[in-house]
């Protein structure tokens, strides 16, 4: 049986908003299709495996984020994984960490991992609330799909010229750096500010990640997810699929 290795980067530091759920959802969806799953938690002091199948990095509070980037800067596993084309999903603080730099809560610039061409400054007001955004940065099955999630961040993330946002915002704030875009796509790396968790609310995105590793996948019934999305969309004031 084919086994898929999922790396969960620093779950104890970067997991304040339930983003461990992204790992659970990905694993569940792979197992439902008959694949075996190995979840590799990278704790402080562990090296980041360079050759796993997919990498998930969640969001965390300010102090934990600073500690996390210091730990990751001392390791090149994630950079190698990106260089060899492994899919990465980085949420909130996870996305900020992968950029050039970000501002901590005192306004000081903290050096990021330099993997993504983006920079994050601190917003005046926290961006909190439902987000609905149409995917513009990904091709195939998931193109034009409506992402739905919940944002809760004080970062304003500005993307470099060469990289695309993940989605166009219909409801909510998104990256918060001036234009109504959300997240980032750069090669096989996807960044987003959406919690929910994002893969729980957007199985199409979860399957996009899995397909890039496992090839074409049978659809799943997803009854509960449909109702979940419908209710959230209603709350956000939109209707869609």
């Amino acid at each position, binding site marked *: 049986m084919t086994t898929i290795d999922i790396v969960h980067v620093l779950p*104890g*530091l970067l*997991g*304040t*908003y*339930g*983003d*461990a*759920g992204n790992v*659970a*959802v990905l694993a*569940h969806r792979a197992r439902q299709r008959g694949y075996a799953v190995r979840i590799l938690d990278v704790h*402080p002091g562990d090296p980041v495996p360079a050759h796993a199948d997919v990498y998930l990095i969640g969001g965390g*509070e*300010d*102090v*934990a984020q*600073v*500690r996390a980037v210091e730990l990751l800067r001392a390791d090149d596993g994630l950079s190698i994984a990106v260089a060899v084309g492994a899919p990465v999903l980085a949420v909130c603080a996870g996305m900020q960490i992968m950029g050039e730099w970000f501002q901590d809560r005192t306004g000081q610039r903290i050096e990021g991992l330099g993997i993504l061409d983006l920079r994050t400054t601190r917003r005046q007001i*926290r961006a*909190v*609330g*439902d987000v609905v955004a149409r995917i513009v940065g990904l091709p195939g099955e998931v193109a034009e799909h409506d992402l739905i999630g*919940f944002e*809760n961040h*004080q970062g304003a993330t500005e993307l470099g010229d060469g990289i695309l946002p993940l989605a166009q915002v219909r409801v909510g704030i998104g990256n918060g750096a001036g234009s109504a875009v959300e997240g980032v796509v750069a090669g096989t790396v996807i960044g987003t500010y959406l*919690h*929910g*968790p994002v893969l*729980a609310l957007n199985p199409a995105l979860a399957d996009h990640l899995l397909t890039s590793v496992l090839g074409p996948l049978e659809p799943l019934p997803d009854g*509960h*997810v449909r*109702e*979940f999305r419908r*209710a959230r969309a209603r709350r956000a004031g939109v209707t869609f699929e």
Partner: protein
Amino acid sequence: MKGSPLSAARLTVARLLGAAAGWASRATGRGEGETLPGVLILRLAPDALARLSANRSTTLISGTNGKSTTTALIVTALGRPTTTNPLGANVASGVVTALAASSQRTTVLEVDELSLRRIASDTRAHLIVAMNLTRDQLDRAGEVGRIERDWHRTFAESGAHVIANAADPLVVSAVGDAPATWVDPGWSWPGDSMVCPACTELLTRVEGRWFCTCGLHQPTANYRVEGTTLVLPDGSRLPIEVPLPGRVNVANMAFAVATVAHHGVSAQDALARCANVREVSGRYSTIEVGGRPALLMLAKNPAGWAAALDMLRPDDAVVFSVNAQLLDGADTSWLWDVSFEEFGGRVVGAHGHNRHDLALRLEVAGADPRVDADIDAVARQLPKADRLVVLATYTSFRELRRRR
């Protein structure tokens, strides 16, 4: 308290209007009787909180989980008339309502973590119980770290004596050098204290005690819980036999004992007085669901759910009920920080406005959720069991507790 006759008169008028509003609210069943009077009073007399606190001995209880229960235990253990807010209205408006309703000098109030600084200052509380700080309603709170910093300023400014949780690094950091009595509740939820709040290094935990290279460490406890035994400052040991279930309530009782000691109540008397506390404002009460009795429990966030799940038995029939209204927190991502995996292979009930969020979580955890907006319909789909338990978030709990 000094002040102009005009402001005193304004307060009198405000109290009369507040009392009338509270009466009207209860009479029409609108259920805001615990806060509406306070809202009105504060609007008319903004200094009401300080004025109404004059000539009182005030104890405040705050923290993410356990406030209401511990407040009730303290009131019971004191064994004397008190001013308190038993229905949990714990921001300024609720506190003012409670103060306006009673002139009993001994005042024991639960206070929301985000309101502690203001209320501690205005009431000039001399005793504050700092129970724990973990993630809860992050859409409202922002970051737990921010609450810790706010508390730190509170304890530095207030001069109050703090009854504080030694096992919680965020509480210890917040207390700083303020005078404190340390309580070790025997367990904690470490999810929000991986990193030292003082210096950002990773915390180390050895044999159940935490410490940091910067010097911040778990203080030696004055009161310590070992299983269901409370160890007192003089080393003597007492069994804690409170009918409330679970180790979390053993811990709550320990905080209550440590607190009432400052009011001259012995540990033996405190425990004896609390020996018949079986429910607290609906928590652990028995309601009717699907034609059978059910134990109703409240849990609001990952730490609280971990404690509640710990109280369930493998042969219980269980209904989870989740809302995401304003008072619950609008985002349900926290469900994925709860170990529902222990329900793998079991049929469980999923109820509440956000039952679909919950159903997905349960399905991914390997459980078999039965989903319905009608809790009686949900319960009827569960296997026969000796005990039916309903575990609900706040606004759902509030509705369900009326089903007696």
